[in-house]
């Protein structure tokens, strides 16, 4: 099980039957089933699998493949590395990705609401953490002064 939360029609739920396996080590033997592979490996054969990007990867290169991509994951090598927030913004707002956008890596309860604001809709919570507990972090606060992917209008246009 992937310790996964997913937003479906605005509702968050714990996903027990997630079919995806995240592949970090491409040298190791690959399991069967649906895989999320690193960008470099995925580009070798873009016809299959989901892809995950590290914070150094350019999200723009995925644009031509949007129609056939089943899933994009963005990696948080550390929860203190905030680059994936901007990558998510670009994927959603500028490039128009509407499919599943998954946060993987150091994904923790206290950052989930920021990820949600930036357009992530699934969250592979770090293995050693309770996914039930993490669920409490998804809502965040009721007030957003600025704007975000899910609320593109700043508060001053919503007053």
């Amino acid at each position: 099980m992937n310790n996964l939360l997913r937003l479906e029609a605005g509702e968050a739920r714990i996903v027990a039957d997630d079919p995806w396996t995240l592949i970090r080590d491409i040298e190791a033997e690959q399991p069967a089933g649906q895989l999320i592979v690193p960008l470099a490996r995925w580009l070798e054969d873009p016809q299959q699998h989901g892809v995950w990007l590290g914070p150094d990867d350019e999200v723009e290169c995925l644009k031509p493949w949007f129609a056939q991509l089943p899933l994009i994951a963005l990696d948080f090598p550390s929860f203190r590395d905030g680059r994936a927030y901007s990558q998510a913004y670009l994927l959603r707002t500028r490039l128009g990705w509407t499919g599943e956008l998954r946060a993987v890596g150091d994904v923790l309860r206290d950052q989930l609401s920021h990820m949600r604001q930036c357009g992530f809709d699934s969250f592979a919570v770090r293995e050693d953490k309770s996914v039930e507990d993490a669920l409490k972090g998804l809502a965040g606060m009721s007030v957003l002064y600025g704007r975000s992917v899910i609320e593109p209008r700043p508060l001053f246009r919503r007053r």
Partner: protein
Amino acid sequence: MYQYDDYDRALVFERVAQFRDQVERFMAGELSEEEFLPLRLQNGLYMQKHAYMLRVAIPYGTLSARQMRTLASIARDYDRGYGHFTTRQNMQFNWIELALVPEILERLAEVEMHAIQTSGNCVRNITTEAFAGVAADELIDPRPLAEILRQWSTINPEFLFLPRKFKIAICSAEQDRAAIMMHDIGLYLYTGADGQMLLRVIVGGGLGRTPILGLQIREGLPWQHLLSYVEAVLRVYNRHGRRDNKYKARIKILVKALGIEAFAREVEEEWQYLKEGPAQLTGVEYERVASAFVPPDYRSLSDTDLEFGTRLAENPTFARWVSRNVQPHKVPGYASVVLSTKPGIASPPGDVTGEQMDVVAGWSEQFGFGEIRIAHEQNIVLPDVPKADLFALWSRACEHGLGSANVGLLTDIIACPGGDFCALANAKSIPIAQGIQARFEDLDYLHDLGDISLNISGCMNACGHHHIGNIGILGVDKNGSEWYQITLGGAQGKHSALGKVIGPSFSAVEVPDVIERIIATFARYRESEELFVDTLQRIGLEPFKEAVYPKVLEVSA
């Protein structure tokens, strides 16, 4: 002053509840120290040498009498009776117990205050000058845009985990009293030919380990684009700023690596997608916020007050204080008063007791409109004092240890808390400041010397802004002992400059002698009423070096 509405209020109270839960989880062992660290930092909580330190935001240095009284109550109830004003116009409490922090934050929220983003790798408190709205040389009141920026940058989800801290300052006066060249983004607000408000955008300034003055990337940006342009800068920085080395992670390093032209191109390219989008500010929003900053009901006063004039003539001590601590006001008959927090040995720079905070709150109501400012020089400003009341205010300030007539003088020392408190410091700052203040107690002499800024930082992080002091003192660690490196020639304002190191560093006991020699050299070469910086500019560093290191060659020979 800006008044919270339901949104602002909901946000600060929800934030308190969120942090209360995080503190509880940390204390219960559910959050590791590493996981808790950025959460507490983004709520203003540092771990210092002896205890937790809480840094409370004072947005653009403005607070009400009621807010000041709340700070006083926190100093009394949760600290050791005092607080410390910082060089970024905030207040720090040094002796805080973790379990009580949510209670303190709740008390702050009740008076529309918070500690959000006063630390951490995010956009920090937006600063401007202490005389915003009242300075005689002001072009446009910068506070409405500062408040708009404060709101926009508060819990902006994309930019909470930047490579490093991010400081924004805005200024709009002939003199730059907000040090905009020393910020990650410095904004200069002015009026264009057609009367429109425009912004000059400066990026990549900063002190710390690699002090750099900011460079201009945009001239004439219409104010409506403020948020979209800052967003573009932040996105470029968030994506491309270095994260492998915390000493190379500030935006200034990225700007330097790319070159200002290439960096500006990246920003402009990003901005093309954002401009004229939903982030574009509206006149309605500007008016909504600006309505909180309308001038108070000033009385119609004569610019010359007979009694004030008489007091000036009769009382040279008062006159001396007026010459240093009173600033011109844009409204006739009024002045802005700087209450010095630098009395010398009695108390470290920036430290103010709860009792002093309470009396200042009272004075702000009695002699003004209940508003108080904090200057980045760590002094307190009462912005709207009728000239007729200056003598009464001065008398009371003297009774309460806030009447030192030394604003802008050598003893108006800017200093970080240093090694007495700070876990990052290499060396102590406060005893150095006090050693110098003790050496230069003669006010007549100090006044003769005129404007000299002296800044002390206890480490490379440069919280005391030593690089931009006319005289800068930096605490350094040499094999476990504390040493002090001296720089000369730094300056803030429109003629900002970074000081140059004069030579090998000194022990703490040597510092007052060294400063005395520097000052004696200035006095020797000074022509008439020349300022220290001008003499230095004219004669160069050499005469100062010769005075400070006279025997070096003989000894080593």
